């Protein structure tokens, strides 16, 4: 069940774990936007992509998640890689700069197509890395506190910030429980001769129903029990409540936020101005 452990909170005590969750959420969003900013020229696109990739790898290393484990779990992405490549190859390119890869009886494919696909894949990997950094280093409960904090201003327009945050926190809280259930039901059905990994499509579909139906049943049962338990304790979503864990913003959070902002600003500047570092050295790039 190793694929399930991906994206789960891992209780280490690194500086990323100690950062304020509000800071982490904002930081991850900023970094993601930065990664997806359009940058003119292939040389600069891949230089900036490389810088961002380096940063995400360093951060990932800090949370002690291994990059190889992520890449390994994305085996299914290879299909997408080929799909993307195929699409870019089939689509005519608007203004190619990298030259012709091949020319088969008028079917011209430019190197740009490959570069384009590479860019998208790099971005996707970085995005997955960033979400992984966030979820591996932040307790789900802290995450919902942060969400609630961000949603609080919306209370002015009567947006039910607390209720939404509570719904999210319950959903997050039950992910490990449901994973345990999945594990248990899988084992029980495997004892009954089900093979989840091999067999034809039809066999696998019945195998899957034998897993999904018991899961639905137990999920509904749990939700009913939870609702009853909450009502028994007089839960009122509108009640004013204090909190045991209070989020504290420390100097370190400012520092990291400033760093991310600087990073974002740099990317934004490069994107808007079309700045080319190679031009400084008098190199002509594509």
């Amino acid at each position, binding site marked *: 069940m190793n694929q399930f452990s991906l994206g789960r909170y891992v209780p280490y005590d690194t500086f990323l774990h100690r950062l304020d969750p509000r800071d982490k959420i904002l930081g991850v969003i900023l970094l993601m936007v930065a990664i997806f900013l359009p940058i003119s020229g292939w040389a600069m696109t891949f230089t900036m992509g490389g810088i961002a990739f380096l940063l995400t790898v360093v951060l990932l290393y800090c949370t002690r998640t291994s990059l190889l484990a992520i890449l390994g779990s994305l085996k299914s992405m290879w299909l997408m890689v080929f799909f993307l490549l195929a699409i870019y190859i089939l689509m005519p390119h608007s203004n190619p700069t990298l030259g012709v890869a091949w020319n088969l009886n008028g079917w011209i494919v430019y190197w740009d197509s490959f570069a384009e696909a590479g860019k998208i894949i790099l971005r996707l990997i970085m995005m997955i890395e960033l979400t992984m950094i966030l979820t591996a280093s932040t307790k789900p409960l802290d995450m919902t506190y942060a969400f609630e904090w961000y949603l609080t201003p919306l209370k002015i327009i009567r947006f039910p910030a607390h209720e939404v945050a509570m719904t999210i926190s319950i959903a997050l809280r039950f992910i490990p429980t449901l994973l345990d*259930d999945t594990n248990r*039901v899988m084992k029980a059905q495997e*004892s*009954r*001769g089900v093979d989840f990994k091999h067999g034809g499509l039809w066999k696998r579909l019945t195998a899957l129903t034998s897993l999904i139906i018991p899961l639905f049943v137990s999920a509904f049962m749990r939700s009913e029990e939870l609702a009853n338990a909450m009502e028994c304790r007089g839960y009122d979503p509108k009640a004013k409540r204090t909190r045991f864990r209070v989020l504290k913003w420390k100097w370190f959070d400012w520092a990291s936020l400033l760093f991310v902002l600087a990073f974002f600003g740099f990317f934004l500047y490069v994107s808007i101005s079309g700045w080319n570092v190679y031009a400084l050295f008098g190199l002509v790039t594509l």
Partner: protein
Amino acid sequence: MAIIFKDVFYVYNKKTPLETEALNGVSLSIEKGSFTALVGRTGCGKSTLVQHINALLSPSKGEVEVDGWINSSDKKRRSKHVRELRKHVGLVFQFPEYQLFEETVEKDVAFAPKNFGQKDEEALKAAHAALGEVGLDESFYKRSPFELSGGEKRKVAIAGILAFHPDVLIVDEPTAGLDPLGAKSMMALFEQIHRSGVTVVLVTHDMNIVLSYADQVVVLDDGKVARITDPVSLFGDDIEAFSLETPLIYRLVKDLKARGAPLDLNAIKGLPSLADQLAALKGEKA
């Protein structure tokens, strides 16, 4: 020998901060045709141990042999075709009622025999026979398993394992949450299955059951085998250290003996055997 554990270790979540050792060098053997009880406090590794017997888990170190089928930490030594083993070893999980998923009771019970290669009709026949064994008559065949009571659901789930006639039957706390009468008839069922030549491994917390039915007891403590013995000699020892309770009837007979009653402790299995002995005593006096 039906089941042999050779110095088995099992570690959950290896190489993460959540790493826990569940089994810590377990060596034991369970003879063919025996009725073995597996006892010990909650979290001592009982459930982990039984999952090794039908290869739902593979040892982190060591080896489990079940009638020649080898489940080893060394992948090269591990036998192929896990389905053959699972057909041979039936495992009933704790609260097995959560594994039901089919539309009708008979279909659900026939699920495992079908997975193990029986034809639809044969499987249905086996299902009907198994339902008869657990005491559910024809009126249940076409009902949905989800509209049954808790006890009935459990019977259906157990029938689902009995239907493919395993040679080794492992049951994890089958009487948990049942009313006393239901528990009694459940145990009578396992006793009957045992008499038909099936090796039974029973995980339980109820020492009265251990005394009445088992001919071998394995006490687990903190992932290690603390005792392997027969029930009567086990209750002769101080067993509170393993958070076990001496059965009432055993204590009664011991007290009676201390007051001079010439009773045979070794022959006491439950109330009927005590009554027999008392009747015999009365006969001697008369």
